[in-house]
């Protein structure tokens, strides 16, 4: 489904080139659960941003479903992010001004889904993450675990092929983190492709494959 070829990302910091990623190549198959692991600052988030086309690689090629999407116009990139990807962040990143259900409805509004339909779908998604009793609450009135569940519902709103989760449990206590992992596992079982960054070896063990990054280089790839 996804193929990266010799991806490199360099940052120009006042004359000195910092290489955040170098010569990264791998593929991700439809329905896989891939964990990306590595020490802090090794380039995991940079890689996730490139996978989610929030960032463009300095060199290399990115194929999605066989199409080279390395350099697409902004509008196309936005469309792909909206319809095909679902992002889950470490710090939840819900909009504090919007209620839980409005947060979930927002990406659907960009996909052009009618108001009534997106409202109904958002309600179903919130029900799926067991938050039907919190739909009209603002994020500030929700616990961290609840916020992350809303974020998952939001990531799922346009039925994405790929979930990109960058340390989704990093800001949560262990038991709440486990709830999130359970939901992701459940999603994987129902066919969604998942790429998750984690520091946690136990979490890595849940994945079918662990890609290990060190200093911007692909250090090892372990399949289970």
């Amino acid at each position, binding site marked *: 489904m996804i193929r990266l070829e010799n991806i490199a990302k360099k940052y120009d910091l006042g004359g000195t080139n910092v290489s955040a990623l170098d010569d990264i190549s791998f593929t991700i198959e439809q329905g896989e659960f891939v964990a990306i692991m590595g020490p802090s600052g090794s380039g995991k988030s940079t890689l996730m941003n490139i996978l989610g086309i929030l960032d463009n690689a300095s060199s290399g090629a990115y194929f999605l479903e066989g199409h080279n999407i390395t350099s697409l116009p902004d509008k196309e990139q*936005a469309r792909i992010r909206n319809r095909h990807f679902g992002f889950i962040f470490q710090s939840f990143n819900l909009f504090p001004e919007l209620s839980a259900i409005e947060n979930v409805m*927002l990406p659907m509004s*960009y996909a052009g889904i009618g108001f009534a339909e997106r409202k109904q779908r958002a309600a179903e998604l919130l029900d799926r993450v067991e938050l039907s009793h919190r739909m009209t609450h603002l994020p500030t009135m929700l616990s961290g675990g609840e916020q992350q569940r809303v974020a998952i519902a939001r990531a799922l709103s346009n039925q994405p092929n790929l979930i990109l989760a960058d340390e989704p449990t990093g800001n949560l206590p262990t038991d709440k983190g486990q709830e999130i992992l359970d939901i992701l596992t459940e999603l994987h079982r129902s066919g969604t492709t998942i790429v998750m960054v984690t520091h946690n070896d136990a979490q890595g063990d849940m994945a079918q494959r662990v890609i290990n990054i060190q200093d911007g280089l692909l250090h090892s790839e372990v399949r289970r």
Partner: protein
Amino acid sequence: MKTREDWTLSLRMLWAHPLESLLLVLGLAIAIGATTSGLAMVEKARVDGDALLQLPEYREIVVSSRESSDQMTTPVVLTQDETVTLSIDDLEAAQLSPDIEFAYLAERTRLRFNTSDINFAPPDAPPETSDTNSNPNSAAADVSTENAAFNERPPLEFATVEGPQPQLDEVSGYSVTTDYFPAMNLTIADGSLFTEADLLQGNKVVVLGAELAKTLFADGENLNRQLASFTNIYTIIGTLQPTGTTLDAMVFMPSRLAQDNTGALAFRGPGGGNNTTLHFAVNDASKLNAAAEQLSSWFDTTYGVGNTATSVPRSAVEQAIDRKEKTALMTLILALAGLLIANVNVSNILYSRAIRRRKQVGILMALGASRRHIFNLFLGESGVVVSLGALAGMAIAFGFSVLLMQSGTDGALPVYAIVLGMLAAAGIALLFTLVPAVYAARIPPAVAIRVE
């Protein structure tokens, strides 16, 4: 295009910073209000000036004998030393220039009605139609001469008429010669205008302005009715079409002509004095000065340099209009300076707001917002701020207009100018908010998302 959730987000963000948002709107309101008022004032000055210059009296050249113009400034009246008497024959000077279309006499006059059946002496006022020539000295002189004459007379029989009486005690108007009517664009609605013959024979006939015609008699009938002043009986021979000017409320009668000491027909002015003012009207205002030059040199040659004065009322009015327009323009320039400052300020606040919201932009892009979408999002928000400011600004301008109107002479600002001015000022304000919107749309999402 902004979706419903986008709007919810935008409006709640504005609402989340009420003080900042209020200051934004307030600053814009004052600046847009001032600019709108300034623009409307400029437009009003222009429109009013144009309308004023359209008036027939500003196509006039006025020629008067020197004493009468001197009397305007000197306290001593030297009526005995008149060296020059302009006569109706001098109106022939109109032949000098093909641009002079009309030549006529026109003196302010007042008609007091004797509506009572009983004959009693009117209070202190002279018993005849009295001239209200803008010269206070001559008026004072007239009163004394008339009173002297009055005192010498035997007991008077005042003129009266039977039948319907006018509803007014007096009306003002003009004693004119026939060219006055076409020169002032006055046309007959009913009956007829008086003729050259009426003038020469001294017929006591009057023509009524349109408004006066409606109100003079209770039944609205005028033609062939008679009006009694204290010494004369006038017959109404015509009523005029409305002009929308003060002339509509006035009465018009033939100039009273009398032979002067040279035998020429002159206007018999107040106290038996001779008229000293002639009016010439051109058809095209741009020919005014040239025609005035010709008249002036002709009168100088005929009566001697300095014995007559030729003036063009339009020049003074043009200067006044010009001064008014420049004042309005100055106000507008100051207001625009204010608008510029307010806009820079608004742009700055929105810019720092966009910086604060970098992370939000990054997330929106992750969720599928394109750069264009982000741009629209921010522009929509500033559009709300600018719209509120513009509406409040327009309210300020209307308030200002009401104040102007209440302060009397000037009248309200034109509504279309206020609306267009508001749109223009709001448009300028919106242009300034493009800067933060473009900035927001250029935020790289990968960087924005890392912001904590």
